[in-house]
């Protein structure tokens, strides 16, 4: 187990450092001098010269890389080139929006997907089960950006029930929740199908366990068996899958944020790409990679604890 944890930690560390190095290399390969690129077209020669010494651009490349990584570890993600704001502050402001979106989607997906999957398993091969199966696959195949656009079209443009843009008035919880509904539904859609299918498979497997048969033989009521014996075991794979998929969820969140103009991390990065504000792109990506790696690490570790077979791999 300790070996497994160490291996996971090492991989996470290498991933994060590797990502930083790749970002650094990409910046190096950008057409033009990094100083000109990072400062934008309005920079005067004096500013560029000052910037070059400030950023160690006149030092050897491995020192630049070391400085780059050390600065990140110190929490300094550089300065945005249009408004001269520290990037770390921009990222910290955007981050809660993304995290709230991610968690509310997972919540919606679980609340709908788990009962759906359980129900399908209980009435296996019935018409309802087949319909649910088809709907689940369809939900999984619809990419979240498409779900976002279609929800926007139906519920915000056509019916005008929900707001189309923004993340709500700051400080007004109700308005923020109101603005959260469509984005988190769009992001949750694929996950509902995903969770329903895993839940169905795992309930079916659980139903053949000896202790379930024993419980039934004891004459326990049907719902007691379902809730106390079957569901408990069946939920484990679902939890593991949610953890493993959390990273992909962040990727989907970027698109949903773009579509609904939510001021989250994805929207920040996307706007920075559009305006060629590279320090923000760089800083935002680093935080995204960190979050992603962290989620993967937690999921892998919990998976290893739940399922001993994983550890030996």
């Amino acid at each position, binding site marked *: 187990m300790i070996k497994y944890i160490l291996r996971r930690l090492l991989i996470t560390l290498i991933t994060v450092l590797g*990502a930083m190095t790749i970002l650094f290399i990409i910046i190096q390969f950008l057409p033009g001098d990094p100083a000109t690129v990072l400062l934008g077209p309005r920079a005067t020669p004096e500013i560029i010269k000052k910037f070059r010494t400030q950023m160690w651009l006149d030092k050897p490349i491995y020192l630049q890389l070391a400085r780059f990584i050390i600065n990140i570890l110190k929490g300094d993600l550089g300065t945005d080139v249009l408004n001269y704001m520290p990037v770390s502050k921009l990222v910290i402001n955007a981050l809660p929006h993304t995290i709230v979106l991610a968690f509310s989607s997972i919540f919606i997906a679980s609340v709908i997907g788990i009962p759906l999957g359980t129900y399908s398993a209980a009435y296996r091969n019935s018409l309802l089960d087949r319909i649910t199966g088809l709907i689940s696959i369809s939900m*999984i195949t619809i*990419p979240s*950006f498409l779900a976002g656009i279609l929800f926007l*079209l139906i519920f915000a443009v056509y019916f005008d029930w929900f707001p189309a843009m923004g993340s709500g008035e700051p400080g007004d919880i109700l308005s923020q929740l109101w603005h959260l509904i469509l984005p988190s539904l769009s992001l949750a859609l694929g996950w509902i199908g995903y969770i329903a299918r*895993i839940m169905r498979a795992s309930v079916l497997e659980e139903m053949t366990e000896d202790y379930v048969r024993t419980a039934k033989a004891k004459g326990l009521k049907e719902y007691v068996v379902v809730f106390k014996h079957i569901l408990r075991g069946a939920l484990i794979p679902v939890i593991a899958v949610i953890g493993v998929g959390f*990273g992909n969820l962040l990727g989907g969140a970027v*698109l949903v944020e773009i579509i609904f103009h939510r001021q989250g991390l994805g929207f920040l990065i996307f706007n920075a790409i559009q305006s060629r504000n*590279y320090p923000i792109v760089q800083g935002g990506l680093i935080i995204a990679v960190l979050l992603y790696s962290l989620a*993967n690490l937690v999921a892998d570790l919990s998976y290893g604890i739940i399922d001993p077979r994983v550890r030996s791999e």
Partner: protein
Amino acid sequence: MIKKLIKKYKKSNIKRVFSDPLGKIGFILILFVLFVAIFAPLIAPYEPSSIDVFNRLTGPSSQHLFGTDNLGRDILSRLVFGSRIVLFVSISTISFGIILAIFFGIMAGYSSERVGNTLLIVFDIIKSFPALLFAMTIIAMTGPNLWMLIVIIGITRFPAYARLIRAQTLRVKEKEFVTAALAIGASTMSIMFKHILPNVIGPIFIQAAMDIPVVITFEATLSFVGLGVPPPTPSWGTIIRTGYSYIRTAPWMVIFGSIALILATLSFTLFGEALRDNLDPRLRQNKV
């Protein structure tokens, strides 16, 4: 006799794929997409990029079945030609991924344990990158480019196949025919690619079929944010992107673009799952 039995068994397996109702629907839809892509010039009523400013943003009508876009281009024709881009990108991406996977996967399985473990860690690292964000950044900095797109998506997809090939290689490399080849002095390269490769490649195709919808979605997503197939090539993602900017006044672009995209991904998903369920029980564990 045994050969005949094996043949019969294999045949019944293939048959099972097509007797699976969802698999059948998927297969018919794939044939439909292929048909549209191959005969695109005959099916499309207009040139996909012919601009008609007098008919911009007109709704569905008998002249333009699916309406026109902001430059007066016929949406139906653009969708029809877009199917070619979808198939081209997904097939070349997956082929590129499989080639990488064959090389590194067999290497990881056949080389020493140290090399194998190092490669496994490399696969894990690539897998744990947020692929979409990275692709967006790299393409934003280099400019939209079809080949770059294929290379990036291919690299992000290959570790899954490579792991599969490695596992198969580990199983095969102790077999007699490999020992025999070693005994008659075959080179490492020849053992890896002539003797091991044909025996490990099978399961990859099922995994690849399952991955086609993922790649289609990836391309459409990048095109949607303006970082995919460069204009004026009619990509479905680009059509949806234009539709998004006119969503209040001309919703048909988004509607028909989405239908095309969902149809294509759904068809490959249904068929891929039927393939997996009926041909490869080992993969069934990763169901979903």
